[in-house]
């Protein structure tokens, strides 16, 4: 098996290496990839969409159809994780596991109260124990709002600086995951419920497709944001810029919710009970 694998790897690697002779040189300005469609994007983006960040403009405007389905792929991955892992079995016996946050000991409770017990219940067990992750928890608590603010900035400022829906959405999702890691999954679940993640993930794709369909309804092509100009009361160029922004918000929502959804299901094996 190993010998066969080595033979395949050496063969494929040799073929690829021999093919590099015909490839353009590193950073050659006249390479075929840089000669056809990309000069047009670079020279016309500012004129047509008034977005300085060409990557954002190409992503959400010129190749908007592609990006819409990339968002749909991300959404599908989230749904697939949910369907594969989520367990909704009627609980075998009324026991549930809780983590005693200070010591990291996992406690199994046999008689579960109807209401979620507050995290303070465990505090009383040993009150003078200094939690070993006190600093981590409190630094994260202070940091998370700023991380989320920065994520919103990355989404909204994607027209003028590196950023956009995908990057901002991942940062936003990471802030929720950081909360789940530094506190525990249940605390994160209180802030962002499971239905909320599912709905937001679907909502992101819906916003993207909805903006496209709105352009269709106003007489343009699908995802042709210039058709939105009568609705937004701006000229067609600015309408394209604004259309990109709406779409990026949709992408950000979908990506954020999907990241959180995947993390929650993976970390707790689909129980959403007690994570890592």
């Amino acid at each position, binding site marked *: 098996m190993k010998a066969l694998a080595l033979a395949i790897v050496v063969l494929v690697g040799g073929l690829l290496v021999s093919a590099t002779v015909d490839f353009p040189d590193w950073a050659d300005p006249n390479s075929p990839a840089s000669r056809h469609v990309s000069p047009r994007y670079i020279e016309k983006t500012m004129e047509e969409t008034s977005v300085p960040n060409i990557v954002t403009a190409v992503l959400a405007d010129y190749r908007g159809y592609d990006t819409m389905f990339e968002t749909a792929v991300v959404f599908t991955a989230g749904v*697939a994780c949910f369907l594969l892992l989520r367990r909704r079995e009627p609980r075998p016996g009324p026991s549930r596991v809780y983590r005693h946050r200070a010591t990291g000991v996992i406690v199994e409770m046999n008689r579960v109260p109807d209401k979620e017990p507050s995290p303070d219940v465990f505090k009383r067990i040993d009150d003078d124990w200094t939690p070993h992750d006190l600093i981590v928890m409190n630094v994260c608590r202070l940091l998370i709002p700023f991380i989320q603010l920065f994520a919103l900035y990355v989404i909204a400022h994607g027209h003028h600086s590196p950023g956009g829906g995908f990057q901002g959405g991942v940062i936003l999702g990471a802030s929720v995951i950081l909360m789940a890691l530094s506190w525990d999954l249940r605390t994160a679940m209180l802030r962002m419920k499971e239905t909320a993640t599912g709905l937001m993930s679907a909502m992101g794709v819906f916003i993207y497709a909805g903006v496209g369909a709105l352009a269709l309804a106003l007489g343009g092509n699908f995802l042709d944001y210039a058709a939105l100009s009568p609705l937004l009361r701006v000229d067609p160029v600015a309408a394209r810029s604004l259309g990109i922004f709406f779409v990026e918000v949709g992408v950000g929502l979908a990506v954020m919710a999907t990241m959180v959804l995947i993390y929650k299901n993976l970390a707790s094996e689909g129980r959403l009970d007690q994570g890592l």
Partner: protein
Amino acid sequence: MEEYIPLLLTKYNYWVYITLMMIGLWAMIAKNNLVKKIVGMNIFQTAIILFYVSIGAKYGGTIPIIQHGPGHGHGAAQIKALAYINPLPHVLMLTAIVVSVATLGVALALVIKIHRRHRTLEEDEILEQLRES
């Protein structure tokens, strides 16, 4: 030998991506543990991303964000395509990165599912269990 040195110097980005890609391919074929296979798949994806991004590079080109661009609707007077690197590979890879994270999530979900059923992640042990049943 002499003629290979410029070849090596002007095309080293391809060598890097091929090396990474072969590491990933090796891991996907030869490794027995399923998580290691997934790591191999991720290295493979990273190699592709490096390949695409390196194609977009241009000597003397800056990042594809127009500096001091003319205001809204004033037209593009002096935007030279040579001054900015190719934005297209960056766009493609931007989405590819997020999709690779999503596929990684699904792959790990499948691995958890397999582990739940077979209590192991070694491929040969799983195959043996399947043969027995």
